[in-house]
């Protein structure tokens, strides 16, 4: 059975933490097509989290096409989850990021500065998408 965890201090909303964990588990193959996610009640009790929050996470995963809820049976991982990327794309994105990291380190940025820059760029991109 898939086990969730919640980091209260991460600053990431709990429902997003659940969404990320499922997304990542599917991407890395820890969750396979046909696997059943734990029931909302089970997650609520196991990690001490609001059932509405779990329901919200499952709804979002469903909208993303990653899972399908079957009434009375549970929520299952889809055959071809829409959010998975091909291994080739994954590798190429990782290479690109590694190359960028190399340039940033050469420019003298330490890990903290890297993180700050990355987060700033990410937020910028998000805001531009919204606008």
């Amino acid at each position, binding site marked *: 059975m898939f086990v969730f965890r*919640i980091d*209260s*201090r991460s*600053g990431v*909303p*709990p*429902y997003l933490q659940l969404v990320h964990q499922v997304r990542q588990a599917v991407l890395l193959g820890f969750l396979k097509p046909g696997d059943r996610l734990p029931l*909302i*009640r089970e997650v*609520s*009790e*196991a*990690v*001490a*989290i*609001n*059932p*509405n*929050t779990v329901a919200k996470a499952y709804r979002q995963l469903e909208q993303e096409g990653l899972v399908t809820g079957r009434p009375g049976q549970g929520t299952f991982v889809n055959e071809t989850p829409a959010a998975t990327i091909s291994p080739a794309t994954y590798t190429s994105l990782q290479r690109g990021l590694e190359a960028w990291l190399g340039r940033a380190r050469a420019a003298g940025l330490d890990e903290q500065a890297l993180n700050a820059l990355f*987060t*700033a760029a990410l*937020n*910028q991109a998000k*805001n531009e998408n919204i*606008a």
Partner: protein
Amino acid sequence: MTATEYALRTDGLGKRYRRTWALRDCSLSVPTGRVTALVGPNGAGKSTFLRLAVGLLAPTTGSVEVLGESPATNTPQVLSRIGFLAQDHPLYKHFTVAELLRLGRSCNLRFDQGLAERRLAQLEIPLDRKAGALSGGQQAQVALALALAKRPDLLVLDEPMASLDPVARLEFLQALMGAVAADGMTVLFSSHVVPELERVCDHLIVLNHSRVTLAGDIDSLVDEHRLLVGPRTTADLDRAGTVVEATHSERHTTLLVRDGGLPAAPGWQSSPVGLEDLVLAYLRRPAGTEVAPTARTEVPA
């Protein structure tokens, strides 16, 4: 259960002890089927609000409506639908757990003794043990089991975890969330520990200086607020939205804003703000600061 949108509503609610107002001009709603946190520093009026909500206190001004009725009328029908767990989960210390269950059964219109026994068995709490001989965490669990056995439509808890160690806190929250998931009741609880609220609550009420300073769904509250960092400025702050808090250092200014668009000025960065920082900013505001848009405008005393 009635299909009303709000389990609890107050209008202009206030409570005065002699010359001191413990709570003033409090108008708010607690949505049905949700878990609402009541947050504020010690002395902010949290316990007073909760006691007014369950009918243990009569209001000085305004009104309370719980599950469509006034709790002050004390009809057994209303009271049987409300569960209340007072601060420090008081139990009769010389009673055994079994005797407490019997008391609960005798004093309540509906009392699911089987449910309470199953919960306690799951937690391996012996029924023949005197309440006073149980650990703090176990006492809290017994008190919660008793409150849940009423199968309340509204469960009100006053600082339920204040005296518990981290393991007992987590176990208490697991039991509470399991019960919410199983029964879909409305929960209102007070706390001054913010980090663990975000996982268990979806609605938030912040009380400070005896008044409501912030109220709303946690997700929308977090979405509505942004942290803006830019070159130092003290003028024209409101251009960025409603400024909740402004901090200035020598060269830059940090603003926590509500309903803000992005600052048009270059060099400003906008980032999301976490629930804890958000709550702290509201708690740091001095008394008499203009109240947030969701609360009522204040009337001079």
